[in-house]
């Protein structure tokens, strides 16, 4: 399974989201490759992704996709991440 985290530059909040999503996946005992990317490359990077994790600002820029788009409010809230990932994958 592939999960893509998206932010504006692809180096800051998407990186934080990647690290914390990996932590949540471990807690859920799920395996996935998590890739951080910037919003301008989302179509290419997320072409084969099952899930896109992002914040509200980028939802409209992501556009049409086959992946489930999950919006995260607090990037450090592991329980929010766990809950939303579990809902999407369960």
């Amino acid at each position, binding site marked *: 399974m592939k999960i893509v985290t998206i*932010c504006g530059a692809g*180096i*800051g909040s998407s990186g*934080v989201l*990647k*690290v914390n999503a990996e932590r949540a996946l471990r807690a859920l005992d799920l395996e996935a490759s998590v890739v951080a990317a910037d919003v301008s490359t989302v179509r290419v990077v997320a072409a084969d992704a099952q899930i896109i994790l992002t914040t509200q*600002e980028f939802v409209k*820029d992501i556009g049409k996709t086959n992946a489930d788009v999950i919006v995260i409010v607090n*990037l*450090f809230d592991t329980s929010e991440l766990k809950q939303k990932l579990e809902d999407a994958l369960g």
Partner: protein
Amino acid sequence: MSLPPLPESAIEIDAFAADWRAAVRLSGEALVRSGAAKPGYADEMIRMIDDHGPYVVIAPGLALAHSRPGPQVIANGLSVVTLKEPVRFGHAHNDPVRVVLGLAISEAGAHLAAVAAVANIFNDSSAINELAAATSAAEVQRIMGANPS
């Protein structure tokens, strides 16, 4: 995982910023003092927020200002600016901001270990309050677990 360098010159305590642009500019100036970025990097960080919104406010009270690797970046570096008076970035949940981190990354491929180290600090939710209350650069470095060199 190693944190980008955070020397004393890249830390400013109890700074005054009239608004979020001024706060981001202070974090950029701190990166210039430490030799991590050129003056134009602050403009790039502000442009990211103008273009994409206040997503850099990654947790309550904490902004992670940054732009892409490029000609305005000299070396990997981190800066910490704590604000005397919090400023609003326009974030729906995480305003107002009391601590602004500035992040400069010189190579796109090598950034994740650095960002992961930053993320690990703030998985302890008390770290933001501790930083906001810090009274010296040495205290900020201790909270961040930074190498002072």
